[in-house]
């Protein structure tokens, strides 16, 4: 049986790029959809708020694995059974990310003091102006740290894309292990790859949080 | 009269900053001593040293027979004899007023729930808060919280009570209710050392006033000393304070 070598390392390195690529898709897609969800969550209309709440609760109350299966088989049902795996994986992770990012960002928007809303209202700004000129810029500052922190969750959760046949780091590790069966070696290496991607993000998020707390004091 | 607390030539620095520079004074049983002075004069530090919350570098402190300056001091034994009340109350937020008071008697004196509750009820009555037994700290006003803190200390039946600027965080109206409780305690014969800014209270209740300045005991005497200060520093302090 061949042992773990450079070929495998190279294979994992390429897979790592797919992990990063899929994370980027999930973050950008999930960010855009999540932003809409966050705005809907603070909407004055009860119906709009209710839709957003339901969406968030369903996404946060179902395992990502099940979500991925549903999209994979759902796409097949409506006739897209020849799509590349990254489409199903990308959609699944986008929905997943939007559910969590929307809720994180809602928290940030609501943590801007009420007096800021009132002050903006007293300046005769429209609701849209208040949101974009006064509230969001302040919320953005608060949101950076948890958003970067959630990026780590996204990267880690791309590992589940393997179930719809997408070859990223975890799946690559599994394939290698199937052929050489050196699980410790293979999966520790895979873990190291993930750690190299995630740890800087975690540290960055912590740094941002610390700076924000100092700024607030 | 027997001496309960005795500080002799106490020195204490925080790094290069000299906070206590040869402080000495005595407190006899049943006495009420008011320690006054500008902020930064070392008065709060002196009080914290008495309860071994701070260690001293030189000199000696004797409290109820405990050598506080000694490295081998059993702090827990010392604290059975000394109660302290803080400026910021420091009630435990997750316990009701009654539970706050019961905690130490059950933990430290190993009293049963019922005995501890009786003590708590009694102490709450003494600070006039019997009806607030089941309230949590955040449901109480600052003055009420401080009175519960006093009751919490009382429950351990200390021989000496220390009060560290206990009314500084309160507005005048609430200050009154706390001072009233302290006055009752003094009248009941409790030995008390209080760091305070309340000159009128010091003059009325204290048997001895210790004026501290620049880490030293600058002037000391009975309450009436405040009416006729001998040092210009105390004159300035009293003049600006009143």
């Amino acid at each position, binding site marked *: 049986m061949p042992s773990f070598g450079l070929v495998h390392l190279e294979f994992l390195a390429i897979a790592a790029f797919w992990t990063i690529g899929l994370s980027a898709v999930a973050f950008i897609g999930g960010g855009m959809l999540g932003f809409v969800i966050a705005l809907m969550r603070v909407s004055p209309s009860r119906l709009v708020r209710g839709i957003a709440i339901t969406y968030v609760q*369903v996404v*946060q*109350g*179902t*395992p*990502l*694995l*099940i*979500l991925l*299966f*549903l999209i994979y*088989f*759902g796409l097949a*049902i*409506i*006739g897209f059974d020849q799509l590349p795996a990254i489409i199903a994986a990308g959609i699944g992770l986008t929905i997943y990310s939007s559910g969590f990012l929307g809720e994180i960002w809602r928290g940030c928007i609501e943590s801007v003091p009420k007096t800021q809303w009132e002050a903006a209202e007293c300046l005769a700004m429209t609701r849209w102006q208040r949101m974009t000129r006064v509230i969001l810029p302040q919320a953005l500052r608060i949101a950076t740290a948890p958003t970067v922190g959630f990026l*780590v969750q996204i990267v*880690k959760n791309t*590992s*589940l894309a393997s*179930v719809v046949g997408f070859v990223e*780091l*975890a799946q690559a590790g*599994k394939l290698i*292990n199937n052929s050489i*069966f050196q*699980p*410790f070696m293979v*999966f*520790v290496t*895979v*873990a190291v790859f*993930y*750690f190299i991607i*995630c*740890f800087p993000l*975690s540290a960055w998020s912590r740094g941002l949080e610390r700076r924000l707390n100092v700024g607030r004091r | 009269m027997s001496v309960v607390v005795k500080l002799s030539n106490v020195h204490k620095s925080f790094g290069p900053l000299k906070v206590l520079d040869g402080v000495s004074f005595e407190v006899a049983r049943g006495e009420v001593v008011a320690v006054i002075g500008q902020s930064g004069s070392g008065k709060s530090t002196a009080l914290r040293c008495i*309860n071994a*919350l701070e260690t001293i570098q030189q000199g000696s402190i004797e409290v109820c027979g405990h050598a506080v300056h000694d490295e081998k001091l059993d*702090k*827990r034994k010392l*604290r*059975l004899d000394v*109660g302290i009340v*803080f400026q*910021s109350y*420091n*009630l*435990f*937020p*997750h*316990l009701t007023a009654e539970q706050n008071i019961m*905690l*130490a008697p059950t*933990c*430290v004196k190993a009293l049963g729930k019922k005995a501890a509750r009786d003590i708590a009820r009694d102490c709450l009555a003494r600070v006039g808060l019997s009806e607030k037994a089941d309230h*949590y700290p*955040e449901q109480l006003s600052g003055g009420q919280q401080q009175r519960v803190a006093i009751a919490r*200390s009382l429950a*351990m039946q200390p021989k000496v009570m220390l009060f560290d600027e206990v009314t500084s965080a309160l507005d005048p109206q609430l200050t009154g209710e706390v001072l009233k409780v302290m006055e009752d305690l003094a009248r009941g014969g409790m030995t008390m050392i209080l760091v305070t800014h309340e000159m009128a209270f010091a003059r009325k209740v204290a048997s001895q006033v210790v004026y501290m300045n620049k880490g030293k005991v600058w002037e000391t005497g009975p309450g009436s000393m405040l009416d006729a200060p001998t040092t210009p520093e105390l004159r300035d302090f009293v003049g600006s304070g009143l």
Partner: protein
Amino acid sequence: MTYQFDFSSLLPYWQQFAEGLWLTLQLSAISTVLGFVGGALCAIARADGPPWLQRVVGAYVEVIRNTPLLVQVFLVYFGIASLGLMVDANLAAVIALVVNVVAYTCEIMRAGIESVHKAQVEAAECLGLNRRQTYWHVVLRPAIERVYPALVSQYVLLMLASSITSQISAEELTAVANRIQSDTFRAFETYIVVGLLYLALSFVVRWAFWGFGMLVFTRRRKLGTAL
């Protein structure tokens, strides 16, 4: 688009769904309890242990939090197997979940412990409480109360994440679904049913934790603070 939904062909499998659901609940419950105890101990070590222990626990927490649960599950399962030991998939699942959730619990609890003000500890010491009593009554209890909501969210996530152990064929709900869909060729319907079961379970778990919190944290009950 002429897909005919057919949930009826899943009906004969209701018992298997129930068994999967039951195992998911068991996996989650065991991992939550062990994770809470282990996490609390780690948090104490991380916040107030000797420096070397703080570093060890800190490194453990970082490693776990920056690698995917799926890889941890693989490592435990295939790793133990490669040592020549027979390993039960369910046991490997519990081990991996516990190792994972201990790290998250530790981080949440540590934040709680560090949020307790030094003056609180000082006050307790001045009342004569010893180190252990002070730690339990004045540090740990209020810390747990404060971070309880965060812990609950984490444990709901854990319950959902237990689906990942289907990848090593632990016989929980998702693994059951995988088997049923390959038997019935009704994949979409199967995952809809299972998705709804998870959704319901996540609500039930949340309620259960809420009720438990109301029972344990009397202050929350009295002040009506949302959990």
